[in-house]
């Protein structure tokens, strides 16, 4: 990990010193990260690809301002998130104000889906591909402020402080929104994740063997 960061720092120094083509190499490990971040917010492939390109170009043009206090990936994800938000805002003002209102405003009163029916769904009925599709759909249905936090924390694995900084909110709000996002997803996806209780974590261990 340390070496990767050191290599990256060296690469960045060379790019800034004039070896600009090396930016291709710098960005390659993060291409997917950038696309997925934008896609999870804008929910449209073509728009996400445009946004990802703009993110990468913006990173290239502003590389000077990357000081290395943050990880490069975190810096990049922050640019991607801003680009995605900008596009979403544009799309929204073009359309009508969205249906994106949170489901109730108090942050703590969320009730998860309680699984009281322990009958097991046959595994073959639950194709992993289908489950991934359901997850993508469910993420897309989260209200925006929850989705943003979920994308940064659980998809891109930024820490709380990085997420707070990227979104311009405080850490407490990051925690609260992340919890709600996860509980909303749990509620939406629980029917597809039914496993026999109480084999903790057993489902995916079996699944990913």
């Amino acid at each position, binding site marked *: 990990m340390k070496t990767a960061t050191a290599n990256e720092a060296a690469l960045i120094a060379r790019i800034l010193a004039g070896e*600009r*083509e090396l*930016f*291709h190499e710098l*960005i390659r490990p993060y*291409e*997917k990260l950038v*696309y*997925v971040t934008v*896609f*999870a917010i804008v929910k449209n*492939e073509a728009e996400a*690809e445009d946004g*990802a*390109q703009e993110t*990468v*170009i913006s990173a*290239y043009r502003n590389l000077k301002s990357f000081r290395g206090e943050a990880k490069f990936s975190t810096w990049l994800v922050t640019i991607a998130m801003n680009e995605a938000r900008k596009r979403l805002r544009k799309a929204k003002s073009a359309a009508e104000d969205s249906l994106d209102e949170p489901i109730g405003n108090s942050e*703590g009163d*969320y*009730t*998860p*889906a*309680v*699984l*009281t029916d*322990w009958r097991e769904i046959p595994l073959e009925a639950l194709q992993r591909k289908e*489950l*991934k599709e359901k*997850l*993508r759909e469910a*993420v897309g249905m989260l209200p925006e402020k929850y989705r943003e936090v*979920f994308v940064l924390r*659980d*998809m891109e*694995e930024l820490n709380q402080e990085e997420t707070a900084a990227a979104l311009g909110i405080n850490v407490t709000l990051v*925690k609260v929104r*992340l*919890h709600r996002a*996860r*509980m909303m*997803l*749990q509620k939406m*996806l*629980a029917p597809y*994740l*039914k*496993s026999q*209780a*109480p*084999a*903790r*974590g*057993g*489902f*995916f261990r079996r699944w*990913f063997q």
Partner: protein
Amino acid sequence: MNLECKHVWEQISGYLDKQLDPEMLAAVERHLESCEICSAVLDSTRNILVLTADERTYELPVGYSRRLHQRLTAVIAGDETGGR
């Protein structure tokens, strides 16, 4: 400290992120040992996070990388010839 289910649900995220203080953690774990419902809620939430972190969950459009680097090549070339 004895917790009701709804109080345990409020702690699930903190539990998964290992952010509960020791007292709360102990109470949550005690509850989970005897409550199948909360265990299932926890499991399903954890499974969602496992799936979320799986890089295969989101796929790239065909040709994405090629188009991205083409665009980048053009931008870099533009810079080198002094244009923007």
